[in-house]
């Protein structure tokens, strides 16, 4: 079991900087994030976009800001659980929390800071009414082991790099691969696009553009997809697997079940210390709401800074806390 002072749910910029401010107070942090790496939407959605309103940086690429934050918090030795989602929060008799991830990881913590931004990033599911019925019965949103598709008939849908790359790879493994995309051109890397077009010419891949999947059929498992082509109309196709690759989108997920006051997908907090209605649980950054709230990274940095002061007093009610500038004390790592 992992033990920590502050469990930060979400390893985006605000969660990361909070490690720094907590570290100055000698509080240890563990971070959990559903994504496979730190950075949240800065890494997932816009790593190459410049940000202009980080104080002291006239311009900084989102991805670089995350790298810098990781360097800045390194002395405080944060620990991470990536690729897992915080699922269940239980308050223990001794006042600590026990948090269980969707993969069963247990984390014991004094306080919880929810810095979950927009929520958890999850694969976008096509709006087909019965798609849930076929999940793991022929519909997969993530390819874990390509060899799973050996000798199978597969339909991939999407127009980005992952759809193109997996189509190329599966062409060597699966019995038959069809790539369905809503328009003629692809947004993926040019050489991947050329490769797929070439494989189509060689008959190793069937490329169907100007088309979308509109229905799934099958009894116990997926047996058929219906493709709607702009000119040719509806085409039924027998398949073993359908792999929709439409990127990720954020969902509030289990946060809604934690008995917190939530309005419009955001957690209500007291601006005194960004505490929620549950003692010991705080919410900082884009996930919280209060009168005058602005969803800005720099506001999240402030919120995390104020929050750790309150967390310290919650964890050590009898200890005196004296505020010190880093210019005076430097960085004394954990």
């Amino acid at each position, binding site marked *: 079991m992992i033990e920590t002072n502050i469990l930060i749910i979400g390893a985006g910029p605000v969660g990361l900087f909070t490690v720094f401010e907590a570290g100055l107070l000698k509080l240890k942090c563990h971070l959990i994030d559903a994504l496979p790496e730190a950075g949240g939407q800065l890494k997932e*959605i816009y790593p190459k976009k410049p940000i202009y309103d980080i104080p002291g940086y006239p311009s900084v690429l989102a991805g670089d800001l995350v790298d810098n934050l990781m360097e800045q918090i390194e002395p405080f030795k944060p620990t991470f659980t990536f690729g897992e989602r915080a699922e269940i929060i239980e308050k223990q008799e001794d006042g600590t929390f026990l948090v269980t991830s969707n993969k069963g990881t247990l984390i014991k913590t004094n306080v919880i800071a929810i810095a979950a931004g*927009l929520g958890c990033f999850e694969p976008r599911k*096509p709006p087909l009414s019965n798609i849930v019925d076929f999940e793991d019965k022929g519909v997969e949103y993530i390819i874990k082991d390509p060899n799973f598709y050996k000798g199978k008939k597969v339909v991939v849908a999407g127009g980005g790099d992952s759809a193109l790359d997996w189509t190329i790879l599966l062409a060597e493994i699966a019995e038959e691969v069809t790539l369905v995309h*809503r*328009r003629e051109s692809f947004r993926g890397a040019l050489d991947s696009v050329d490769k797929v077009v070439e494989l189509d010419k060689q008959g190793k891949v069937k490329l169907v553009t100007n088309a979308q999947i509109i229905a799934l059929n099958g009894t116990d498992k997926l047996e058929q997809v219906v493709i709607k082509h702009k000119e040719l109309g509806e085409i039924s196709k027998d398949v073993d697997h359908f792999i929709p690759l*439409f*990127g990720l*989108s*954020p969902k509030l997920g289990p946060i809604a079940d934690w008995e917190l006051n939530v309005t419009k997908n955001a957690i209500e907090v007291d601006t005194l210390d960004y505490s929620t209605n549950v003692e010991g649980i705080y919410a900082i950054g884009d996930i919280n709401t209060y009168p005058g709230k602005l*969803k800005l990274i720099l506001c999240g940095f402030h919120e995390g800074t104020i929050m750790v002061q309150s967390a310290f007093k919650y964890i050590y009610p009898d200890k005196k806390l004296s505020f010190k500038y880093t210019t005076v004390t430097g960085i004394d790592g954990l």
Partner: protein
Amino acid sequence: MDGIVNIKVTDREGVTHEIEAPTDMNMNLMEICKSYELPVEGTCGGMALCASCHMYILSEHNLSKPSDDEEDMLDQAFFVEDNSRLGCQIPITEDLEGLEVKLADVE
């Protein structure tokens, strides 16, 4: 009125809202819908990096063609039609007078 265009936005329940949009505030269609508290998410803030302001253009307005970035993002949306656009990529200008749009369904 000067500096104001009238736009009709039909929400997902089929209710049409007549809204007045200022042309001098550097706003776009996603932002004006949000300011009227219509159910448009605009998750990415207007960078054409999500598809949560997906809408259909119902009237015959001559809008600028979608950029590659916008088309790429529409690839990740669902219920995409020929008249699909991302509201965040349509700036509010005088040319939009009388524009009619419908919000696309969400997943």
